């Protein structure tokens, strides 16, 4: 059952994105079947969010770890990408300083802070986009799981983690651009970010990354590791008496999930064109959890579905009912939790007799 829904999901994502790519690049603007570039970036953003949702579902749906700070890993990946994109601007910034990004110039930085070194190399930056979230998750998770912090307590300290990072990144003295974050990117891997082909390329890359993450996640949860993980979720102490160490299982999946979130963030930034501390805000993490709940917890595909549905709804409502969209969103969350405990995917499965 889950195999089938995964394949459908991957098929849909790849075919849909492929179709959009072709329709965007091969038809002229205004043609009847033309997909506007606006839609390309938008779907790219949804799919990046879907990767984050997938990461959340992996730890929450299968590991029982309700992380209310997962957006932090997403943002860390995004910052790594943002730092690369800023360095890539080179001397084309408004001040024409070849070494220092604009915000450093007008805040009177004399030299590049040491931790900015290396980010001019795309490979290094991409590596950092997964290593930094992984490292933060490893350190945080090691201490948290070893001392058996669980349930609400864990949720609250993950929130404290992202809140602390939020405050830290807001500080201008940190050298990450403070509240303004990083914007005005020009190129990625030497290709102009404004070009349609680059945008399509990023969308396709995001779709592929999402599918790969989905496959990895699917493998992990169906492996014996995944079975142990589910056992840990449902009865942690029992697994312990069976000789398993739940903390290493949780830690492993937490780090894996942070890596996925980091990848999502790194793909998100070039498509939306900005990374700023707001991405660390606890509300973002809670929203990611909500996507998963809306789609269906512990189903992987549901997470993807939820992220796309909620964000598409948000796009639509903020444009169509700017004054009332929060009501719509709020009621959606309440209704889903009250009426659809298994999410939209659960509803679909019920309607189709559990085949999807």
């Amino acid at each position, binding site marked *: 059952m889950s195999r089938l829904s995964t394949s459908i999901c991957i098929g849909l994502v790849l075919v849909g994105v492929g179709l959009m790519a072709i329709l965007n690049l091969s038809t002229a603007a205004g043609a009847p079947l033309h997909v506007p570039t606006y839609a390309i970036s938008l779907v790219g953003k949804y799919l990046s969010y879907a990767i984050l949702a997938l990461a959340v579902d992996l730890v929450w749906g299968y590991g029982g770890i*309700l992380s209310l700070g997962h957006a932090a890993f997403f943002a860390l990946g995004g910052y790594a990408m943002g730092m690369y994109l800023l360095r890539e601007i080179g001397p084309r910034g408004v001040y024409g300083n070849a070494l220092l990004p604009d915000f450093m110039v007008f805040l009177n930085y004399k030299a590049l802070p040491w931790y900015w070194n290396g980010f001019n190399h795309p490979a290094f930056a991409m590596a950092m986009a997964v290593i930094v979230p992984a490292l933060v998750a490893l350190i*945080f998770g090691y*201490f*948290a799981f*070893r*001392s*058996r*912090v*669980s*349930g*609400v*307590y864990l*949720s*609250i*300290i993950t*929130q*404290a*983690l992202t*809140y*602390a990072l939020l*405050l*830290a990144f*807001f*500080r201008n003295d940190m050298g990450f651009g403070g509240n303004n974050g990083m914007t005005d990117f020009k190129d990625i891997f030497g290709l102009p970010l404004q070009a349609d082909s680059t945008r399509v390329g990023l969308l396709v890359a995001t779709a592929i990354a999402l599918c790969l993450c989905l496959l990895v996640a699917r493998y992990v949860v169906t492996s014996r590791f995944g079975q142990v993980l589910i056992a840990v979720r449902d009865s942690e102490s029992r697994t312990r008496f069976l000789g398993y160490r739940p903390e290493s299982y949780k830690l492993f999946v937490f780090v894996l999930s942070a890596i996925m979130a980091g990848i999502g963030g790194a793909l998100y930034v070039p498509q939306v064109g900005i990374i700023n501390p707001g991405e660390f805000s*606890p509300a973002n993490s*809670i929203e990611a*959890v*909500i996507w998963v*709940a809306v789609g269906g917890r512990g189903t992987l595909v549901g997470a993807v579905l939820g992220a796309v549905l909620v964000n598409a709804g948000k796009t639509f409502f903020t444009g169509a009912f700017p*004054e*009332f969209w*929060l*009501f719509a*969103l*709020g*009621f*959606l*969350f*309440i209704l*889903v*939790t*009250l009426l659809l*405990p298994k999410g939209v995917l659960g509803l679909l499965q019920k309607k189709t007799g559990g085949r999807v």
Partner: protein
Amino acid sequence: MGWGSDPEGDVMVSIHRLLAVLLVSLPLLATSPARADDAPDPFIGLASQNFDIVANAISALAVSGHPQAAATIAAIEADNLYVDAAGDGAPLILIKQGDSYIDARTGQKASDINEDDVDSVRVNNAVRRAIEAAKGGLDLFAADADTRQKAAEKVFTSHDPAALPLLARAIAAEKDAGAKRAMQQAQAASLLAGDGGSDAERVAAVAILRLRGDVEAKSLLQSLHDQSKPVAAAIAAATSSLARIEQLWSVLQSVFYGISLGSVLLLAAAGLAITFGVMGVINMAHGEMVMLGAYTTFMVQEVIRTHAPGLFGASLFIAVPLAFLVSGIAGILIERCMIRFLYGRPLETLLASWGLSLILQQGVRSIFGSSNREVGTPEWMSGAVQWGGLVITWNRLTIIVFAVIVIAALMAVMRGTSLGLRMRAVTQNRRMAAAMGIRTPWIDALTFGLGSGVAGMAGVALSQIDNVSPNLGQGYIIDSFMVVVFGGVGNLWGTVVSAMTLGIVNKFLEPFAGAVLGKIVVLIALILFIQRKPRGMFPLKGRAVEQ
């Protein structure tokens, strides 16, 4: 550059001038009242566009002995003094009374005033200082000892050597010990600020300032340079002693700040300690319950402003029970319509209540608008009291007291009433409680209502120190959860200790690390602490709150 700039003017000039004039004219004042037409018209300066001229005019007016002087100065202070320069000759100076004007010079009703020609007298901070000085200088000889003491304090702040003769006369006449001490301190300050006095006199003055013992005395002493040897030595000794005292006070002050911040955290978290701590409901709309309380306060004040302005001082006392009811009823409704379907699924509650918080925020935004609403501070809560080197603001002190009362009441309800007993019974063993005939659904609703109501009361307090806006609750929700978790879920005492600890630690870190870094350090410390003691400072044992 524009009008009104006068590089010659100096802040203290007006006071200086005023004091000098006072000194000369005081005997006159006592014997024969000066006649207005003897002196040049002091009113004319009030019509000027130049602030310094207006300020000088006020100083002159204050000492002119003109029968209308006091009324005129009072009118400027109240923004009621107007100028009509339309006619030929000297401009008319008018005091507005309701819809009509009174000629300030004569006190007679002015007729034939064309509203378009009338402009208010120009006031800025310099003018306002002149007004204060005008009242202050005269106040050194006021009938009331308190007023005299305050006037002396003003002279101390300005420490103008020109005031010395006046102070000497005032001290000689002074009977009240407090006022006299203040005047002597002012005298010492003024003496040191100038070059006069023998070394012995100056050393004695330093000693007086050292006895005063506060920051102002220290900064004054530190600002003195090029003193003779014995004086310089005395100053050095005095400043180092004052620095030690200051350090001691600053520790105490930080403790007060910490307790005050702690009370705010405690109030914000107290309701959550019930809904989350006792019931285990992760209520993300808790902040919005606080917000409802703040808006209730706003509504109460609106009604009072329009219907019974005299009651304004009592507005908060009226708001507290109302806020409790409004948020409490909202809480009961939320429990009945939403939460009760989600018991045993804490994480779903989190999501649904998050949705609810979005709705409540947007709802308030639609009804009250998105901008801040004004909630006034009653007179009795304004200002501060100085106790040694400790500055205690009334509003903070009130909030501390309020927090103590709320927590005490909450504990009394939980421990002393049958409702509290039932609440504890239901949360500890639902089935057993039900078997004993307790209507558990009703108790759930009431418990949730109680927690929400307490949050509403917190809203009344927060309306006094923070913005009353739809975002009010958002700012406190994370902190509240931290406080409850740090203290140990389900333990009210834990919440109290935790709030105070976080408040004080935060305030002690702030001077070293800055506000932002301080908060980050506290958060990280909290994360590490939870890992050492996963169930907070005071974990409850054998409880089914978790899982």
